[in-house]
């Protein structure tokens, strides 16, 4: 494959890719697509794929068998999409290898097997199958970043280009100055998706203003929180979208140096992003003098080794530089002094992935989505015993109740909703009566919650609030980098007090000691980990005071989780 020399060469290439894409969906052969992602592999998607390959050959069915990415519906993996000649593509859920023969034989007989279908890619119902867009999981979503998730092959740059990929980068490169790109991102009011919600445009602008070279642009794909899995799904299902956002970021900062720092555990995300980089080099969308312009860009992929703290900006940069990933005091901020002491713009994976559509459609268009202060769409994941677990993309401002009970389908059979933990290990939970809050940056914060990275944990009556608080505190204790004392010593102390309470030795004064200790940790810690580490505990105490009370005063764990029961029995001389 020769490098594309200029814009015309790209246009020709894109036209060919598009024509191939259209031919794929028009001929009188079958097109069968299998979603291959981390979570579908765990449920046997590779076996399904191999089985299909074998059976299609055996039955002599003329078919193109494709691999696509995940579409966010973890609950329906492994999924298979079948387009029979003359019919719209139909998506089937939970097609494990044992179901493959039934499915293929039925389809061969001309039956649609509607009972296994999630939906048809059509505007009207087809042979008893509803349009996919009306599936309750998808009906309320607004998909920009996930628009082609499960549609394109993540390992094919041609698929991405056929669907309009790299158009935004070309528009920026040939029709806009770097300042104009930054102006659009500012106008979009896109706020950082990694947790803090800082406006990306303002960060890019400060990065431009700092007069030191070289500069660096870095994607934060570390995703080490225990409560979210959206960035890796994005990288697995549409890696070129993130790469295009990063390219635009490098162009805006006028730098040839881009990085993606990916959590080492996310093996498939790393692999697919690396493959995307390789393909972009091959085509000449990365490298020197891209498409004949003076703009050059080189991307390096670096991986983490399982330390949550390396997601924090300054720690991440030390980690890239081959040092232990520990945060430093600020200022200077990273946009002044980051990687190799040079100006560095760091944004979350999802933040970068949102940029192409902003450049293509304009900042004002993006700002019209979502709410006034939280514009655009947000990837959210819900964990816990809900019916339709997965990744959804919603417009900001949908209520938490709609999100949990409509999009994610509410609680599984046999589970009763008790609360939803927001902001992962950095904020507090919401109770049932608070669920009408809009899901956006500011509304959740007002209730002591947090949008954070968009990972929410639904929990049921079998989870004890004290034990859950201990779990979240213990996470922060374990992940503390031990650089500063309030965090290094304070968090273990809080865990110790919680253990006392869990074991039935809590004292009424303990709650005040927790509040006092938490205050010190929050005010005196060096970085964002320590500064919010006690928040989940304080949040649990506020949301479920009666449970803390029951443990401390009545020596009883209402959910029957804590070791308190045995302790109380021993104390009573009973066994």
């Amino acid at each position, binding site marked *: 494959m020769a490098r594309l020399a200029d814009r015309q060469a790209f246009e020709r290439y894109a036209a060919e890719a598009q024509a191939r894409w259209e031919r794929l969906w028009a001929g009188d052969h079958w097109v069968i697509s299998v979603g291959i992602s*981390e*979570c579908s592999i*765990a*449920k*046997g998607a590779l076996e399904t794929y191999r089985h299909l390959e074998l059976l299609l050959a055996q039955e002599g069915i003329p078919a193109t068998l494709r691999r696509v990415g995940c579409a966010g519906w*973890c*609950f329906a*993996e492994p999924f298979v999409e079948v387009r029979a000649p003359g019919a719209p593509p139909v998506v089937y859920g*939970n097609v*494990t290898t044992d179901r493959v023969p039934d499915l293929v034989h039925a389809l061969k007989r001309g039956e649609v097997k509607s009972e296994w279908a999630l939906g048809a890619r059509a505007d009207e119902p087809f042979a008893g199958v509803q349009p996919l867009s009306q599936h309750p999981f998808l009906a309320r979503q607004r998909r920009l970043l996930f628009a082609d998730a499960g549609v394109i092959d993540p390992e094919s740059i041609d698929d991405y280009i056929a669907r309009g990929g790299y158009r935004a980068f070309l528009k920026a490169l040939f029709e806009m100055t770097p300042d104009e790109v930054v102006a659009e991102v500012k106008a979009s009011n896109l706020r950082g998706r990694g947790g803090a919600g800082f406006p990306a445009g303002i960060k890019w602008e400060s990065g431009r203003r700092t007069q030191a070279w070289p500069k660096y642009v870095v994607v934060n794909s570390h995703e*080490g*929180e*225990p*409560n*979210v*899995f959206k960035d*890796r*799904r994005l990288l697995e299902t549409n890696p070129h979208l993130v790469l295009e956002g990063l390219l635009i970021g490098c162009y805006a900062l006028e730098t040839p140096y881009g990085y993606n720092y990916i*959590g*080492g*555990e*996310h093996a498939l995300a790393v692999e697919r992003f690396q493959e995307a980089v390789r393909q972009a080099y091959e085509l000449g969308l990365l490298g020197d003098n891209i498409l004949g312009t003076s703009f050059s860009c080189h991307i*390096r992929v*670096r*991986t*983490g*080794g*399982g*330390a*949550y703290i390396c997601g924090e900006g300054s720690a991440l940069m030390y*980690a*890239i*530089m*081959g*040092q*232990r*990933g520990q945060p430093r005091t600020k200022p200077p901020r990273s946009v002044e002094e980051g990687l*190799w002491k040079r100006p560095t713009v760091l944004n979350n994976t999802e933040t970068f992935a949102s940029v192409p559509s902003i450049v293509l459609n304009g900042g004002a268009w993006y700002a019209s989505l979502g709410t006034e202060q939280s514009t655009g769409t947000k990837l959210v*994941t819900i*964990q*816990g*015993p809900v019916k339709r*677990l*997965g990744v959804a993309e919603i417009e900001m401002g949908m209520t938490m109740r709609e999100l949990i009970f409509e999009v994610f389908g509410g609680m599984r059979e046999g589970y009763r909703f008790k609360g939803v*933990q927001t902001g*992962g290990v950095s904020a507090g939970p919401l109770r049932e009566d608070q669920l009408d809050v809009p899901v956006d940056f500011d509304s959740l914060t007002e209730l002591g919650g947090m949008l954070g990275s968009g*990972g929410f*944990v*639904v*929990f*049921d009556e079998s*989870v004890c609030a004290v*034990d*859950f608080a201990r*779990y979240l505190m213990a*996470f922060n204790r*374990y*992940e503390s980098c031990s650089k500063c004392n309030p965090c290094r010593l304070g968090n273990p102390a809080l865990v110790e007090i919680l253990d006392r309470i869990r074991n039935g030795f809590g004292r009424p004064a303990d709650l005040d000691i927790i509040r006092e200790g938490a205050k010190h940790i929050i005010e005196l810690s060096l970085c964002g980990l320590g500064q919010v580490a006690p928040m989940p505990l304080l949040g649990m105490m506020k949301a479920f005071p009666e449970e803390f009370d029951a443990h401390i005063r009545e020596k009883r764990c209402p959910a029957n989780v804590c070791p308190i029961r045995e302790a109380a029995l021993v104390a009573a001389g009973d066994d």
Partner: protein
Amino acid sequence: MANRIDRDEKIDLTPLLEVLANRFRPRDDQEAYELIVGACQEAQRLYGWVPPEAAQAIADHLGVTINRVYGLLTFYADFRTEPPGKHFLWLCHGAACYVMGSSRLIELLRDRHQLVDHGVSPDGELTLHVFNGCLGVCDLAPVIQVDHHEYWGRLTPERLEAAIEALKRGDRLEDADGTAG
């Protein structure tokens, strides 16, 4: 991968040196530092842990000190500087798995198999890493990834016990991911 390696067994560095020569070619000092973690990850993929000889080979290849390499090996939770047991259990202790009962699995492994985080069971069969993050397959929570490819999902202490029995016998657990029921 992750086969049992006795401490006195000699490590064959050839595959590592090959990977280093092919894929780890820093153009300057900065890049050499940037590549240490990745090189250690390759070593762990090859040997199931990072033996001292491998750490030294990485340091030599990249032109950095061995202290720097161990500084990173001991900082990150993913690395092992001790040989693993025969099978590798990666137990997810992310929030979904916690809510669905991963604590009970950790207790069971500790009480019944004398197996704790980063440890090896006394019979040398099992190594456990408790992952303080999300493995990304929450629909299977609580979940354990076994020997880097298979998943045991929707585990209860009873199913985990059965799965371990099967693993030690060399069998596969029926409905391993737990989604058939």
